[in-house]
């Protein structure tokens, strides 16, 4: 493993605390991932990325900055990567998926908040995430009250640009988001010093569409029975996609999809044919949050689809590439991003429709609707999700959890009973 300590030092990170994190990850990754049998060879790339998760990609971003590029750290699938890429910048996901960062976050936030927000701020203020440290600008968005207020605290410490998300889906809301993307583009041009043109944005739109299509191919392979890949492995690929260079992300996902399609042709699977198939819906599963998938897949079932931000919401729907002016492209971007059925919208019938559609497409035997503690938006939507699934005759289990492992046995009982019920 390459030594990245000098780079971390230069990024101003807290090396001592960061070492504790680096020491814990290999054990948990080994227990959860490397114990799986017959994994696709294409997963070797993602295993390698995890083994140097805070080194290899941050080093590329440092290099980009040395060459004059800028790095934009983002928290949400609503931020249009295309604009940043078109201006020669890089978009990166940010840390926020582990209990490790929560206590640090609770120093600046109330404890009764969702662990994703607490962990994110904890990673920033604790200086234990190179993706935070390497970012020139953070891009926030108003997708929930907790995030809205947390960005004020974050913004006092580093430049944080806030995108004002519409809360409804009326024609004027689509227009508002088009305007939001246009304003975002002005900020990105200022920060990068690069002028945005329709040609550059067109190329970037094409590139990100290719990435989406590649991710979609891997996910689509899970419609097969037997499953050519575990849910855990696909989750890992999707989580890493938030951090990787988009062209390489597409290339690696396409290579993995080739392998999975060949497996399907041979009837080769990682679980026996007929294994109970679970669709997961709810709040995001940020890396390294693998708890839910791990419990499901060691309790006799398999995850076949994630209707979450680190799942289908990240790659479904392409941006229309036919526009030739920036205005037209901003509108095309808005049209695509507004199709996301995040629980921040009201009303939000599209999410329930998505869940039912995906459950059918991926032939799910049951749905697990799991939200992070203190996420009011997803918690409230649980009843409409449950009612719609009951009407469709699809069993549903509602769960609530956070990043700590202390409820894993209680979760195992509920998930185990749900799988027995499906049998």
């Amino acid at each position, binding site marked *: 493993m390459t030594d990245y300590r000098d780079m971390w030092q230069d990024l101003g990170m807290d090396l001592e605390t960061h070492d504790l994190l680096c020491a814990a990850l290999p054990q948990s990754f080994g227990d959860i991932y490397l114990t799986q049998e017959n994994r696709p060879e294409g997963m070797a790339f993602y295993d390698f990325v995890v083994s140097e998760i805070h080194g290899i990609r941050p080093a590329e971003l440092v290099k980009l900055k040395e060459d004059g590029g800028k790095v934009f750290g983002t928290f949400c699938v609503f931020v249009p990567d295309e604009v940043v890429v078109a201006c020669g910048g890089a978009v990166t996901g940010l840390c926020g998926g582990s209990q490790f960062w929560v206590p640090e976050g609770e120093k600046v936030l109330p404890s009764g908040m969702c662990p994703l927000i607490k962990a994110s701020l904890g990673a920033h203020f604790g200086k234990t995430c190179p993706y935070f440290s390497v970012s020139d600008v953070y891009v926030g968005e108003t997708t929930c009250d907790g995030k809205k207020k947390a960005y004020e605290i974050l913004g006092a410490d580093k430049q944080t640009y806030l995108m004002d998300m519409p809360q409804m889906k009326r024609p004027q809301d689509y227009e508002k988001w088009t305007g939001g993307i246009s304003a975002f583009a002005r900020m990105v041009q200022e920060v990068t010093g690069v002028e945005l043109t329709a040609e550059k944005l067109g190329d970037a739109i094409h590139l990100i569409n290719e990435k989406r299509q590649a991710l979609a191919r891997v996910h689509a392979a899970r419609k097969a029975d037997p499953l050519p890949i575990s849910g855990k492995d696909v989750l890992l690929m999707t989580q890493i996609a938030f951090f990787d260079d988009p062209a390489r992300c597409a290339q690696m996902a396409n290579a993995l999809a080739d392998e999975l399609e060949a497996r399907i042709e041979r009837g080769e699977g990682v679980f026996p044919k007929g294994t109970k198939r679970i669709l997961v819906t709810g709040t995001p599963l940020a890396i390294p949050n693998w708890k839910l998938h791990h419990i499901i897949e060691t309790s006799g079932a398999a995850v076949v689809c994630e209707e979450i931000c680190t799942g289908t919401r990240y790659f479904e729907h392409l941006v229309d590439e036919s526009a030739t002016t920036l205005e037209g492209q901003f509108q095309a971007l808005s049209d695509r991003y507004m199709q996301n059925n995040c629980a921040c919208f009201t009303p939000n019938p599209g999410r329930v429709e998505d869940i039912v559609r995906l459950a059918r497409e991926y032939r799910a035997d049951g749905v697990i609707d799991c939200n992070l503690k203190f996420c009011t938006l997803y918690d409230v939507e649980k009843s409409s999700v449950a009612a719609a699934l009951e009407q469709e005759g699809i069993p549903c289990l509602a769960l609530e959890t956070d990043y700590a492992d202390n409820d894993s046995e209680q979760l195992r*009982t509920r998930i185990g009973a749900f799988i*027995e019920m499906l049998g």
Partner: protein
Amino acid sequence: MLGIGIDIGSTATKVAVLNEAGELVRTEVRPTGFSSVEAAEGVRTLLEEDGCLAQPHAVVATGYGRVAVPYADKVVTEITCHGKGAARLFGGDGVVVDIGGQDTKVIKLAGGKVMKFVMNDKCSAGTGRFLEIMADRLAMSQTDLARMAREGTPTPISNMCTVFAESEVISLVGKGEPRENIANGVIESVVARVATLVLQTPGSPYFLTGGLCENDYVVERLGAKLEASVTTCPEARYAGAIGAALCALELG
């Protein structure tokens, strides 16, 4: 062949043995104590002494200590087992309410199978533990708590957290509130909490299983709160073990 079901709960370990015809031939309940491994070993000794293990048999373990039974042929979750056991004890369709030591389960049965279930969150309010703690605080047994509650007038205990509710009880004691009234408030609090959970999956008739099934006053108050009949029977505290024993017979 014998079907042996072992239900290692947080408070009590229950054992049920069914003969080949599916008849209940033996039950046992004992405190789980500190170690579920030791509880499982104790049960093994008992089954050996009874000669159960000398006959052809299958063992299914359930309950939170289910993984601590090395001689089990299979482990099945307590939800499936309680559902199966209750269907056996009470017949076909209905809603099983199991008030356990550390959790409360509500299980909807149709055709003897689990259709849906809900459990309380990581919190002991609305469980047997709540009554246990409050009875200890009032220096009485749970049986006396129920008896006294019947004689008391309602004294609201509004905290939903066991730890805070205990402080509330201490304040009431300090104010000189009669024990009967506090006991009444304690039972009402647990019943209200259970009823809230039950009403997420309504559908009578209701069957009460678990450690509180012999507590007449709880059964009565739960029925009143749900405005429906709540049925129970002495074997209902073994429902999980009986369900596990039924699963064991299926293995044969």
